[in-house]
């Protein structure tokens, strides 16, 4: 960045600025605000002129565009004299300016990767003890004595956890949701699940306190490349922790690996409370907003396409970065999914803190659904799936809005003679789910 500003500061303030600046990387500033605010802040910074800096304990006072900003290590704790109640452009501008001090004083040769900066951050002991104390209180008095106030405390902790403690925040939201279900005497309340969640909350806080942050943190998009894919199906999902979305299952032809691409909406905000309805999920599926050339997930299903400059994380989840471009080609055929995908994958090693890591896909050749019976008491469908390479019994699909069409599809096709083609199956959280039927050039999403 061309510096069109000068710092007016003593040595102490400059060295504090260099220390704090390491926490204000571009990615983090965008996360704390948004891309628009960040760009606007950089524009402001361009004509900022002199920026006075003064150290105030562990915080740094800066003056930018006439506003006094107090910078702290945690960007969400920074203060500004302007009317904005959240992280404003003055804070972002001051933080971006101070970041250049870190660049020039502590990293003269190469930029320090963002991931390392996060690792250097000490655990937020105050937040983590609050989490543990909340879980301990619930365990001491019992779920049966929990009220709306406890659910609200958990919601507040989820918000406070934010992106840094996303795993803990998700558990907080799920616990709060269970308490609400219990108080509403909702049939969906499960004491066993609620108990597991409260214990998980305590264990997560304990692990984070013990420095397991790296394990619980979402992995970065470390894999990059370009390749030829087919989209073998898509399915909707909704979590208790307040997210809903649509995931496309993509198969990389050269690498012979499955990837996933998800379009996600949080449903815990009042304005997006209906995000998990099938109607909204269908809208998400058809939304033309992905990658550089604004493709939709529905336009990918059943197609061959090339992805250029894609990024994926260790769990082979593709990023939605606009740097990736997608060229959709002809229809895929069942021959694009090789024979070896018919082998049912072995179970992955169980990890208490990363249950979602065990996501695998396989295909069933000449499939047929068997023994579909809807259990009215348990509100779900018992069924089986059989084919040339697999005989899967005791499969279960819980009744909920997102599964309604799949349940109807399985019921209608149960007991029919084997179909030509492939059935794409997903293993997730120890259960097996069907995704799509692929026959010749036709891909039928079972859930849509």
């Amino acid at each position, binding site marked *: 960045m061309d510096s069109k500003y000068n710092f007016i500061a003593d040595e102490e303030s400059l060295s504090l600025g260099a220390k704090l600046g390491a926490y204000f990387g571009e990615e983090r500033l965008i996360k704390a605000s948004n891309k628009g605010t960040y760009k606007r802040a950089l524009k402001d910074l361009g004509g900022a002129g002199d920026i006075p800096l003064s150290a105030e304990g562990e915080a740094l006072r800066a003056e930018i565009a006439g506003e006094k900003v107090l910078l702290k290590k945690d960007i969400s704790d920074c203060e500004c004299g302007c009317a904005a109640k959240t992280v404003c452009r003055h804070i972002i501008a001051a933080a971006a300016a101070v970041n250049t001090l870190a660049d020039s004083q502590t990293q003269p040769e190469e930029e320090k990767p963002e991931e390392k900066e996060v690792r250097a951050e000490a655990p937020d002991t105050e937040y983590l003890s609050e989490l543990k104390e909340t*879980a*301990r209180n*619930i*365990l*001491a*008095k*019992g*779920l*049966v*004595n929990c009220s709306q106030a406890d659910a609200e405390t958990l919601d507040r902790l989820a918000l406070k956890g934010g992106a840094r403690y996303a795993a803990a925040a998700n558990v907080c939201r799920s616990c709060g949701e269970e308490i609400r279900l219990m108080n509403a005497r909702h049939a969906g309340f499960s*004491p*066993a699940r*609620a*108990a*597991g969640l*409260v*214990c*998980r909350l*305590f*264990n997560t806080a*304990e692990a984070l306190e013990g420095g397991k942050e790296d394990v619980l943190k979402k992995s970065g998009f470390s894999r990059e490349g370009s390749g030829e894919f087919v989209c073998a199906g898509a399915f909707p999902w909704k979590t208790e922790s307040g997210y809903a979305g649509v995931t496309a299952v993509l198969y990389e032809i050269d690498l012979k690996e499955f990837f996933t691409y998800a379009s996600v909406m949080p449903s815990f905000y009042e304005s997006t409370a209906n995000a998990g309805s099938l109607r909204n999920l269908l809208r998400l599926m058809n939304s033309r907003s992905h990658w550089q050339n604004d493709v939709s997930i529905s336009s990918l299903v059943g197609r061959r396409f090339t992805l250029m400059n894609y990024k994926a994380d260790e769990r082979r989840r593709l990023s939605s970065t606009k740097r990736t471009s997608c060229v959709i080609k002809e229809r895929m055929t069942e021959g694009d999914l090789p024979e070896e995908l018919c082998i049912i994958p072995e179970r992955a*090693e*169980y990890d*208490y803190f990363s249950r979602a890591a065990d996501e695998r896909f396989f295909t069933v050749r000449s499939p047929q659904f068997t023994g579909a019976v809807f259990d009215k008491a348990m509100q779900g469908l018992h069924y089986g799936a059989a084919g040339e390479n697999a005989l899967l019994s005791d499969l279960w699909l819980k009744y909920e809005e997102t599964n309604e069409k799949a349940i109807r599809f399985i019921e209608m096709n149960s007991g029919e003679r084997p179909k030509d083609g492939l059935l794409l199956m997903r293993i997730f959280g*120890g259960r097996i789910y069907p995704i799509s039927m692929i026959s010749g050039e036709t891909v039928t999403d079972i859930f849509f």
Partner: protein
Amino acid sequence: MEKVITEIENLVCDLCFSGLDCAGSDLIKRLERAAALCRELNMTVGEKLCRDTADGLSAGGGRDCAKTLCALACYAESMRNTE
């Protein structure tokens, strides 16, 4: 093993639901029985966690044994999924 894991899961559920402060002697006895079952099956970690939770509850420190109860929940879940 299946039986003892199910019993530990039920115990965790009952303790969390009714609260550690109100855990009665029946739950403590069930924990002791689960510890004995674990011992028979050579599940040393399970035995220790069940016994520590029972001892904590007997000593009247409901809040203090939250940590062992959570560890027991983690143990039961891991055993269930690696069985």
